[in-house]
């Protein structure tokens, strides 16, 4: 099976990413609902406990940390959506044209910056989590930073490739 072009591995990858994008959007909707519902969580629990057939035990305690957790997930999902969209655009050029275009170099660079923002946000939310006593699970992974460097290198490889292709195209 071919790696690039129509009906290739790139096509399968694009299909997978389209699926991931749908999941992210569902996550966004879920988070938006959660954002609206959290302030009413105590009232809703109290209202539900009024029903005889429902057995609701325990209490709901809403703190600033809950909003922080939702905000953290919002940022994470936004970064994921941005990266997936850029990757889909890159895969489109792999399937239907030449991958060595300046736009792809810019897209890879955009992915790199988005990943930096995502990782930077982790630090910010971890710090805010300490202040608001939120139970945030923030993992700082060295492999992500290695991936960020690799993406920037890849961006420059594509830039050089695009430059060489332009030169080739304009050689008579």
């Amino acid at each position: 099976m071919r790696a690039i072009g129509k009906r290739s591995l790139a096509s399968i990858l694009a299909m997978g990413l389209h699926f991931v994008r749908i999941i992210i959007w569902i996550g966004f909707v879920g988070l938006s609902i959660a954002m609206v519902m959290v302030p009413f969580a105590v009232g809703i629990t109290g209202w539900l406990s009024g029903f005889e057939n429902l057995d609701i035990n325990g209490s709901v305690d809403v703190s600033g940390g809950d909003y922080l957790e939702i905000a953290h997930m919002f940022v994470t999902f936004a970064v994921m959506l941005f990266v997936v969209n850029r990757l889909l655009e890159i895969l489109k050029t792999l399937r239907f044209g030449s991958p060595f275009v300046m736009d792809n170099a810019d897209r890879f660079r955009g992915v790199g910056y988005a990943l930096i923002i995502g990782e930077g946000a982790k630090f910010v939310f971890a710090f805010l989590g300490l202040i608001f006593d939120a139970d945030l699970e923030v993992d700082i992974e060295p492999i992500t930073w290695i991936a960020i460097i690799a993406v920037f290198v890849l961006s420059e490889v594509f830039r050089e490739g695009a430059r060489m292709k332009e030169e080739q195209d304009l050689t008579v």
Partner: protein
Amino acid sequence: MAISVKLDRVLLDRGMSLTELSERVGVTIANLSILKTSKAKAIRFSTLEAICKELDCQPGDLLFYEDDAAD
């Protein structure tokens, strides 16, 4: 670009069209247009040789150097 191609002038002198030259040298009109409008980044010796042969001219008749800084 500092190097410009005066293909249109030589074609005019020889009374030859771009299409005719394209057929004679076996280079597409699109590529000859790139050359004519000085958008080309490079020219192969084989292309230059074929053009010079068909137009009965020297490379120096086609290529001119102009200092960009002088603009």
